[in-house]
């Protein structure tokens, strides 16, 4: 999509470099509240990028990627508490575990399509949550305490690194043959298969990547909360928020989740501060209005307008 905006295309790399440097230096200057807000923003954007691969590029709309976030959180917490690993190593292990789970799960679930896949994944996430609650080692739903020590700054850098990695991965997917395969099966899976795309392998790879990213992020979130319980890490609110960000920005675009995420967190923060009573109402209503005004998302709408004006 950025291809149709040549000016922006040239500006992307320098802009990105400046943004990353600013974000790396930010914790030195910010107070506790601001860095918390920044962490949550980067976290939701990274989650939105994770979701965008399977749902935006491959067209498999999932309501259950938060399951992998929860698995990553719990794996990290258990490893840190029982084996005393350094938390980033544990979070990495959590991400790998999420990926390993996603492969057989994807093999089964990706046979479903459309709303069936969406709600099937929702059910799957609920089942994983209930199972975690039922296992005694996880504190059976009453939660787990993590040893204090690692501050918000460490968690923030971990999350920022994954977010940048997820954006880089998306840029690569958007230009690669793999990305073309995903888009082909999004438009018409049978035709894609006829043309020689190994649809099952492509789908499962995309699903795995969309599980790895939340899996890696989950560990940081566990450290951030220092106390985790199933409802906090299998948070349907976090899940849905990241989905809305990706759609609002532009489904299956490189910059959609970033733009959507920035717009959403700003709106949501401003509303929360001013109208806590009717925050949910305004938020929901705004989403509906934005969707009708920009059905394909902010990035495609902007790109189309720019292309029209410059006559290309």
């Amino acid at each position: 999509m950025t291809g149709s905006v040549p000016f922006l295309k040239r500006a992307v790399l320098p802009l990105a470099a400046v943004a990353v440097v600013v974000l790396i230096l930010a914790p030195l200057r910010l107070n506790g509240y601001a860095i918390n807000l920044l962490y949550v923003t980067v976290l939701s954007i990274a989650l939105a990028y994770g979701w965008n691969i399977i749902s935006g590029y491959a067209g498999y709309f999932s309501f259950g990627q938060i399951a992998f976030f929860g698995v990553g959180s719990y794996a990290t917490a258990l490893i840190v508490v029982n084996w005393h690993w350094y938390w980033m190593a544990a979070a990495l292990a959590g991400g790998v575990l999420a990926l390993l789970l996603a492969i057989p799960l994807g093999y089964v679930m990706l046979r479903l399509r459309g709303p069936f896949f969406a709600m099937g994944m929702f059910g799957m996430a609920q089942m994983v949550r209930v199972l975690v609650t039922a296992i005694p080692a996880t504190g059976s739903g009453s939660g787990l305490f993590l040893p204090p020590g690692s501050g918000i700054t460490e968690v923030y850098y971990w999350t920022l690194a994954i977010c940048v990695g997820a954006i880089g991965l998306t840029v690569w997917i958007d230009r690669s043959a793999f990305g073309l395969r995903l888009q082909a099966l999004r438009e018409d899976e049978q035709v894609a298969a006829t043309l020689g795309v190994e649809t099952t392998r492509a789908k499962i790879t995309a699903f795995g990547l969309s599980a790895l990213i939340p899996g890696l992020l989950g560990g940081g979130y566990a450290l951030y909360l220092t106390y985790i319980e199933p409802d906090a890490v299998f948070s349907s609110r976090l899940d849905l928020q990241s989905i809305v960000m990706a759609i609002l920005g532009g489904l299956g675009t490189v910059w959609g989740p970033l733009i959507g995420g920035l717009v959403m967190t700003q709106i949501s923060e401003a509303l929360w501060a001013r109208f806590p009573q009717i925050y949910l109402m305004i938020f929901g209503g705004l989403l509906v209005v934005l969707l009708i005004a920009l059905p394909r998302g902010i990035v495609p709408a902007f790109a189309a307008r720019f292309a029209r004006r410059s006559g290309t």
Partner: protein
Amino acid sequence: MILLQLAINGVLLGGVLALSALGFNIVFGVMRVVNLAHGDFVVLAAVFAAFGFAQFGINPLLLLPLTIVAGFAAGALVHYALLRRLPGEVASAEASSLTLTFGLSYFLTGAGLATFGGRFVSVPYLTGAFRIGEVSVPQARLLAFVVAVVLSLGFALLLRSTALGRAIRATSQNLDGALACGVDVDRVRTLAFAIGTPVATAAGTLMSFLYNLNAQQGVLFTVNAFAVVVIGGLGNYTGAVLGALILGLTESFASYFMGATLAEAAPYLLFILVLLFVPGGLRGRRAA
């Protein structure tokens, strides 16, 4: 005896679930829209009924006509003003209707919380039970079941024997065919949404006898309705009744034998298994 008791509880719950799912099914069948705000209409009606009972002592059954009319108006408005304006030919049409109803769901939850507060409420109405031997039949559940069955039959009659009902069924079976036969599909869609919503609000009024609810519990009923419809076969109205009974029985037995926590997972497991192994639902055509 306990088995019989569990079966009775399950069937009574199934009746109300069937009514709720009927509304969801009409909307999905005609428009291929998974209405994520379905459960919020159910819950809002339930909380409204509890509020009316607690504040003014109004019998919830007297509120039924009001909730049905209000649901019809709200449904017509939502489709006419919002859903209809989504472009249909965009590749992400499915995604945008999901997102739109998701936003609507937040809106309704927020409106419910702002109006009625976050306390869990229910209607303590007909709290007694009929005893037959060792089995007891809770009166409120029985009443909810009977009203749900009557309303479901009413809607079934509407779908079966009126011109509008035929147009609705034609549109859900074959869009192009319906268009070719001169069905005003746009109007049918608005009316289908306008009929699906009062079914949800009527079910919600009855749910206020069975559950302690606040405005945030909507997602529970959206998922229930989806599960029922998937089990029974999409767009298949008799199949949905079967699905509702199976789901009601599963919830009843699972919560007794597996404990409340694990039982929460039972409906999800059930509908994932059905999706994977009986993709068209138990009585449906193959899923499109």
